């Protein structure tokens, strides 16, 4: 299934390329000792500039999901699962992703998942699979 790739910037590079070393990298504020998403040069909570990427466990849970059945493009392999996953490190630390390697009918809210990267060119897309 082809994917549109993000344009890489100084701010988002760690998120999209962390998978090169097998690690999901999330932006973290040293002053707040909290993660935030999406990555940016400043902490949206305290406005500290002392921020940067930090590896996380890659474990989380499905907050919500949808099974897409619509063939938006000829090359898509529907049905596929789009989800919002919340990471184990912090409540509300979440982003849109795909849940893969599972029958779409088996996906459920609160299902534990772990990250798995799909490399396309110089981007390592963080996808999630069911955690044992």
């Amino acid at each position, binding site marked *: 299934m082809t*994917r*549109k*790739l993000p*344009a*890489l910037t100084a701010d988002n590079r760690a998120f999209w390329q962390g998978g090169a070393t097998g690690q999901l990298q999330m932006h973290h504020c040293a002053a707040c000792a909290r993660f935030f998403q999406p990555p940016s040069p400043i902490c949206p909570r305290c406005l500290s500039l002392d921020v940067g990427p930090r590896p996380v466990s890659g474990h989380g849970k499905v907050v919500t999901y949808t099974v*897409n059945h619509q063939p938006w493009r000829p090359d898509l392999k529907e049905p596929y699962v*789009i989800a919002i996953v919340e990471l184990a490190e912090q409540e509300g630390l979440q*982003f*849109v992703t795909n849940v893969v390697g599972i029958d779409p009918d088996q996906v459920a*809210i609160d299902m534990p998942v772990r990250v798995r990267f799909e490399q396309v060119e110089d981007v390592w897309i963080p996808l999630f699979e069911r955690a044992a």
Partner: protein
Amino acid sequence: MIDRIHEKNVAITGIGQSEVRRPSDKSAMRLTLDACLEAIADAGLTRDDIDGISCWPGDNNNGDAFSPVGPNALIGTLGLKVNWYGGGYEGPGPLAGVINGAMAIAAGLCRHVLVFRTITEATRRQTDKGASALTNKTVGRDSSASWQWYTPFNVLSGVNLMAMYAQRHFHEYGTTSEQLAQIALTCRANAALNPKAIYRTPLTMDDYMASRMISTPLRMLDCDVHCDASTAIILSRADAARDLPNPPVRIEAIGAALHQPWSWDQIDLTAMATRDAADMMWSRTDVKPSEVGTAQLYDGFSILTMMWMEALRLCPRGESGRFVEGGRRIALDGTLPVNTNGGQLSGGRTHGLGYVHEACTQLWQRGGARQVAPHQVSVVASGGGPLAGSLLLVRD
């Protein structure tokens, strides 16, 4: 306390709308002119009275079907001389054109503002079935600050995001597909009484359940119907509205707040930005939700109408499913008539201004077969995800 005065000095004095077709053979500009000239005449004004023009989102994408006509083109086409004009995508949702125009009048920049919204998505869909108004269509990599977080995961339409909100609503509140269906069924019943509506054939619960699943739990019938149309309203300063033919419909209160990131996944997943806008709106008025005569609530996707109902305190949070069940309360003769012209689900995706047009149609008792009981207050709300704006309209 923020000053609550200003929008109260602004009233809607005229409305207009082109044909609503799937597709129309008229040009986007011709549809726009049909709507705008009708609105100007309806307000009892002439072109020379119009000294402001406002549009959301404007022609921000070089004639794209999502908004093929903006203020810049229309100023010349209508030969207007304006003291203020504006258009653009970034703002509190599809009502931003009304909100900006009202602010321009309240600030004393102009007296009569033409607000319009043109859309030709039905024509585009004939050649481009995969088209989505939302996603970044740049060739190559996605550089959008927002969309780059979704397109790599093949989120290619707003429906995928709305579906995730719906799924979460189902999970947290026990909302069901049968309850969601009622929004579509009510809109279709109302559309049957609206000669301009796109879909007017009766719809049953079985029809809904048999309709194609697009993105679980949202089916085809949960999605609005593309059309070609233009809608226009005239905003006038209150003192200039008094001598015009229509009873002024005052903008009693505006809701335009966003107290969360402008994001589709970093916001409240079961209220989105609706509550920010709605809370601001009610804080600017002494009118109460119980006084609302019709609610014209965004139904680009059925779940959004339900979230707006909750945000606007027309029912308790999480209880919109139970509130709409069976459809009696939200019917034309119910306690809270919703989307009286068929909404966007059956009436056509006029995208924002259509709701204002219908609110005024009802307040002025021009609804014909779909006219509800006489009332003085209407609430209009538009948007989904981080897009959210609302208007409380009062006919004195």
